[in-house]
């Protein structure tokens, strides 16, 4: 203890304070996040079934199975395809269009209109996913609004666009709902990022003779990069974790295979079919995919950081 007194310094004291501030959260995450995922990992090495009392250690057999067999017709490969298609088909338009919307909004004359649009775009996100699904299932019903709308747009009548029926249409439908729900949220994130750029820069650019287009590409976009990266990662992670939209549609009568995203496959394999070992293996695989993709995005963005 005498030694400690000698080296006692403000920094050490602060370090201890800092650490103890993080302690409650750490404790929480240990019990409710780390423990379950570690447990899931160990379960993935067994052949545990929900209702059986005992299970055996089978090593990596679950993982081998998932990559080689069809898991009762809902293979992991198909789930990966479904998840990937959904993610790419949703997060890219979301990021791009929300950026465009944010940029447009920033140029409006009256701040009030900017606020109005942001509020309006965000409203769907306020609804719970159950509510959103309930509304859209009715909208996508063959007799519902979307068919009528699409018919008007394409100058036909009575044509059923098979929103929930056709393979591609079904996937597109889930993407539409997800996009509808979250676009406002990302618009707001982008506006926050855009607002952080000091107006002085724009004034300087105008003085230098730059037009709107050039300003956007050469100045705004590079300065916005941290926000774009943040938004992209969040959007991507969110899309990878999607569950309720696809689940609700399937409950409402749609086929499962085209939209059998990994989370849904985990749910059905584990909770419906009771194959906990295999479902845990799928979860670990998803977890690793997410880690890799996030790391990848971070690495790509670390190159050329811009400061001002």
């Amino acid at each position, binding site marked *: 203890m005498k030694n400690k007194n000698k080296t006692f310094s403000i920094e050490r004291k602060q370090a201890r304070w800092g650490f103890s501030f993080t302690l409650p959260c750490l404790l929480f995450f240990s019990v409710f996040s780390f423990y379950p995922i570690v447990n899931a990992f160990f379960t993935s090495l067994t052949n545990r079934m929900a*209702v059986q009392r005992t299970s055996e250690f089978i090593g990596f057999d679950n993982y081998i199975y998932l990559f080689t067999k069809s898991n009762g017709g809902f293979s992991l490969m198909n789930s990966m395809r479904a998840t990937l298609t959904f993610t790419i088909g949703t997060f890219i338009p979301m990021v791009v269009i929300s950026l465009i919307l944010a940029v447009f909004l920033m140029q409006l004359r009256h701040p009030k209109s900017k606020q109005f649009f942001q509020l309006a775009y965000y409203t769907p996100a306020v609804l719970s996913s159950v509510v959103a699904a309930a509304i859209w299932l009715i909208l996508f019903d063959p007799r519902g609004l979307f068919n009528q709308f699409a018919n008007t747009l394409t100058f036909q009548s009575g044509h059923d666009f098979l929103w929930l*029926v056709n393979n591609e249409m079904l996937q597109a439908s889930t993407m539409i709902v997800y996009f509808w729900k979250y676009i406002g949220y990302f618009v707001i994130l982008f506006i926050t990022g855009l607002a952080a750029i000091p107006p002085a820069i724009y004034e300087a650019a105008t003085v230098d003779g730059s037009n709107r287009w050039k300003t956007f590409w050469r100045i705004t976009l590079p300065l916005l990069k941290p926000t774009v990266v943040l938004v992209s990662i969040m959007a991507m992670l969110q899309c990878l974790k999607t569950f309720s939209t696809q689940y609700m549609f399937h409950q409402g009568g749609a086929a499962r295979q085209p939209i059998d995203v990994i989370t849904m496959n985990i749910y059905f394999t584990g*909770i419906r079919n009771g194959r906990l070992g295999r479902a845990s293996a799928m979860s670990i695989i998803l977890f690793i995919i997410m880690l890799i993709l996030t790391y990848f995005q971070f690495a790509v963005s670390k190159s050329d950081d811009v400061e001002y």
Partner: protein
Amino acid sequence: MKKIVVSILLILALIAPLLATGTQEVDENAPVTIEFWTHEDANRQKLEDRYIEEFTKTHPNVTVNVTRQSANKLIELVQSAFAANQGPTMFNLSIEDEYQYISAGRVAQIDYEAAGYSDAKDVINSYAPKMLEGVTLDGKVYGLPLELTNWSIFLNKKVFRDAGLDPEKDYPKTWEDMVEISRKLIIREGDILVRRGYDFRYGYYLVNNVPMVEQLGGALFSEDGKEAIVGEKAWIEFLTFMKNWGPNGENLGSPTYTAARKLFNKDNNDIAMCTTGLYQEARILNDNPDFYNSGEWMVVPYPKFKNAVKDVAGCYYGHFYMVNSDADKATQKAAWQLISYMLSHGEEYLVNVGIIQPTIELLNSETYKNMPYSDVFTGDFARGHIVYYGAASAEIQALIRTSVEAVMLQGVDPKQAYLQLKTSAQELIDEQ
């Protein structure tokens, strides 16, 4: 230093749940709590609540907590609860979802004395033959039936007449009739169906559609249980029939429309026929008494194909009350007493809820014979057999659903869908 603390926390977090254990005590008149999980049914709930109240009056040391969930959700919830060793004291599910509990030893044998029987044979003999097959293993009985149900075709007479048909004469006797009659009954706006003739009860393929395959000479499994999806020609014929029915064929119906049986009670001129059971009668009475009393509905038997090689009606399934084998003896006993008390009111269940508890006594009673069209259901019972309840039944049903949806909604060729179905199902069977 910090890393050590973090690691200790992690280890503690890992161990802590292992240290939490439950204790059990056995004491005759000690307070007993029964957790009773069942699926929602407005009509049955009224009876249950009453019986439970009466039971707790005569057994004051017993508390009964009822949890009701939708039928689909209940399957998953009971399974999750058992996976965490926190299963309810007693519950009921459809036999194909329940069988795994028996084979895994999670549910207890009937406490024959508590339930008012002398032994297993006594129980089996009180019920109509073969009714307890699904819950009997090695001569021991593990459940008592809440209901045994089969589905026939309900028909709205008004819609038939509106299309110029005579319901008494022109009702469909074959599946080919069904197609033809639906053509006449259908009203469309463009591609969109505004009124359907009949539509299948999508989702319940094991109960409702496997018999169609069997009529054509196919089967779910071979006799020895080693081969899955037997009878290529029959299965392809069945899938072709479904393809023809759907949006890519004659567009007579589809899984994406509102389920027929949900529309039937409203008598809204949007559906003529649906597949459902005797319990629907109680629901019609509850939802739309004018419709019920008008007599403008009837029940007809399950159709068969013109060239059917076997006469098979829709399968019957059953819900059985089962008791958690982890519960202590006193609780188990109280549970069986409660179950047997509730089940002693067979006629009330029949009249108020429309479910059949297949005791010999009930099936011979006047009450049963007086239920409208009960003879149709009895006839179909005789023509049918119990639904497949063995291992992986949920997954097999999901596979059939996939192949039906593939041919109906995604334009997949029936032969291809059959091959896919066979491979996947075979894989499931080989794993067992």
